[in-house]
């Protein structure tokens, strides 16, 4: 069992956890992930390690409640436990002093971009980050990014905070302003990563994305996470998760990620019903005990 030392919502539906896993905390590098399984009936889900705390022996993961498992995870509180946490998995980010490095995080993708931004800064890059959210409430890790990056731009789709527009528009502006950019890291929803890749492709700016396919074991045994990069099949769990954005077949990734869409909806539906039932039962028992 892996104890949750800290749990707190940092945005609507987005929760930050520090989980006790001293070995992983010691070993993890930027770009790597863990696979977790909440309980005996749970599925194995990959989550990128956002940070670690060596004194406490913990790793930080930031989870957006989307499906059954992530929603169930986000119901856990400080003091609860997770049955299985395994890692660190995947190749670490390739870090070097590129010159000027731009880290782009869309939504919860910022949590994944953050550790790499830290490593890029440490390697001597002039580090810029562009972090976006649908609205002000969905922008995460702004302070953390400001602590490590030389410049931070915040964007919101509705203009409720920072720059009004998408992260790609902000990136284009920087390019149009003739700012020097040697390296781009883009992490977020697939359409966003695809859009960033299109922006940088013409200019031949080296661009890396982190892929999020469906995984089972995470050690190269099952091949469920296969993607096409440079017209070749790769196993994201051992060959990635980071790849050259200009060579990734994003449409294939998106399509394969839809494989279990109906099952996911069913599982989520059942979970929500059970949760409602639990709340109902709780209210009933409270009412009873109050009587």
């Amino acid at each position, binding site marked *: 069992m892996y104890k949750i030392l800290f749990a707190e919502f940092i945005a609507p539906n987005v929760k930050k956890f520090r989980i006790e896993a001293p*070995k*992983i905390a010691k*070993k993890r590098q930027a770009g790597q992930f863990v696979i977790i*399984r909440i309980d005996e*009936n*749970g*599925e*194995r889900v990959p989550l990128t390690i956002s940070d670690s705390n060596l004194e406490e022996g913990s790793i930080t993961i930031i989870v957006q409640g989307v499906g*059954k*498992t992530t929603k169930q995870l986000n119901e856990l509180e400080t003091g609860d436990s997770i*049955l*299985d*946490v*395994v*890692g*660190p*998995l995947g190749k670490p980010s390739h870090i070097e002093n590129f010159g000027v490095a731009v880290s782009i995080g869309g939504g919860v993708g910022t949590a994944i971009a953050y550790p790499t931004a830290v490593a890029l800064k440490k390697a001597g890059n002039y580090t810029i980050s562009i972090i976006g959210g649908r609205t002000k409430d969905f922008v995460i890790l702004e302070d953390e990014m400001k602590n490590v990056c030389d410049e931070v731009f915040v964007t919101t789709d509705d203009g409720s905070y920072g720059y009004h527009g998408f992260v790609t528009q902000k990136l284009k502006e920087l390019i149009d302003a003739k700012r020097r950019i040697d390296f781009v890291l883009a992490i977020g929803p697939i359409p966003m990563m695809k859009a960033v890749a299109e922006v940088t492709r013409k200019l031949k700016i080296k661009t890396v994305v982190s892929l999020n396919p469906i995984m*089972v*074991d995470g*050690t*190269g*045994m*099952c*091949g*469920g996470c*296969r*993607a*096409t990069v440079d017209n070749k*099949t790769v*196993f994201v769990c*051992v060959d990635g998760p980071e790849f050259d954005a200009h060579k990734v077949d994003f449409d*294939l990734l998106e*399509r*394969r990620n*839809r*494989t*279990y869409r109906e*099952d*996911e909806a*069913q*599982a989520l539906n*059942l979970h929500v019903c059970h949760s409602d039932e639990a709340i109902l039962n709780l209210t009933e028992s409270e009412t009873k005990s109050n009587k």
Partner: protein
Amino acid sequence: MEKLSNKERMKIVRQAMPEQDSQVRRNNFQEVNLGFTEELARLEALRCIQCPKPTCVEGCPVGVKIKDFIGLVADGDYLGAAAKIKEDNMLPAVCGRVCPQEEQCEAKCVVGKKNGAVAIGRLERFVADFEREHVGIREPELKPKTGKKVAIVGSGPAGLSCAGDLIQMGHDVTVFEALHELGGVLIYGIPEFRLPKEIVKAEVESLKKLGVDFQTNAVIGMTDTVEELMKDGYDAVFIAVGAGLPYFLNIPGENLNGVYSANEFLTRVNLMKAYKFPNYDTPVFHCKDKNIAVFGGGNTAMDAVRTAKRLGAKNAYIIYRRSDLEMPARKEEIHHAKEEGIEFIYLSNPLEFVGDKNGWLKGVKVQKMELGEPDASGRRRPIPIAGSDYIIDIDMAVIAIGNGSNPIIQKTTPDLQYTKWGNIIVDEATMKTSKKGVFAGGDIVTGGATVILAMGAGRKAAAAINEYLLSSN
């Protein structure tokens, strides 16, 4: 033992294995073979003529004293028989079920030259089940502690057998497992209907009782490297990480939704219990009333296709590019599959997977083959027949054509020697690698093989590790 002449013994026919009716079992995941009753076991044991120089044992990769244990069965001393097997094999309930006895011990049985061979595997299974069900698995005596520590990487058949031997020799043993459950391929790969998971769990429990320490969620190479294990005070390391990356056919359309590797399909169903979705969270393709095809002709292919049938597939095909004669799966598995309604499409080579507009698999284009001259493997080479392409409608495909090596150990342990396929090179007699104190065995050395070969490698390694530890005092 009953006084029977060899002639009388030879008159007894080979006893059939009681099994679940094929029309019933194709709809459930319970074990197909039901096991011998005491009566059947004694009768079968009487068929053994107790050769003065038994040849059966030569066919056993771990050298089980077959004649002796069968003699004890004939005498009704089943617990004695169990103890006799365990002198050489720590996992008899597993081996009795999944070993290809017909190619090993039973192939060498003298009785088998005239009548059917003595059913050694069925007797082994009977004895192990009898012990577990009646008195629980009994632990053997341990030698005094040596103070030496061994790390075993992987809890599959090679790792478990090595752990069983080393703990008895007095060493401290820790087994590191990457997944959340122990047993490796016995858990994620071989289906419940062929090897109930309770049996694997019982065998693992007995090793725990002997003092073997198991750590799950530990991916050696990532969580700790081999080098770090040695620095942490392990005096020797045995690498038994099993098979790795699944091979694909490398044909167009292979990344369509609905195309699985056998590893993924079986792991979802066996380890993650996707057949109990949504009670378990892991989904798998809904086979019900669909057409599914498995490509390959080995035991894993049979496991996958029979699993799909149990998940409700309307038509479940094995598509194989050679003929039935070249098929490497056990005869028993092929026979069971056919009884359950699996259709075998021989001499058909897949050329391309075809999808619908949403990227879901809809069919496979295959080319008919004919057999030519024998190739390097001694099997007749399949040759394409020009213009024979046609499409088979399928909704799910499972590729079961074997595995390459897992890259994690190689990437993180560069000071071992590897073949160009990434398999670890060892001394075949001792399983020693090129690195001092590091041994390796099982599929990571041989490529995809059998449970018993992996166990044999585990035992060889245990003997060599013991010698290494005692001489390095």
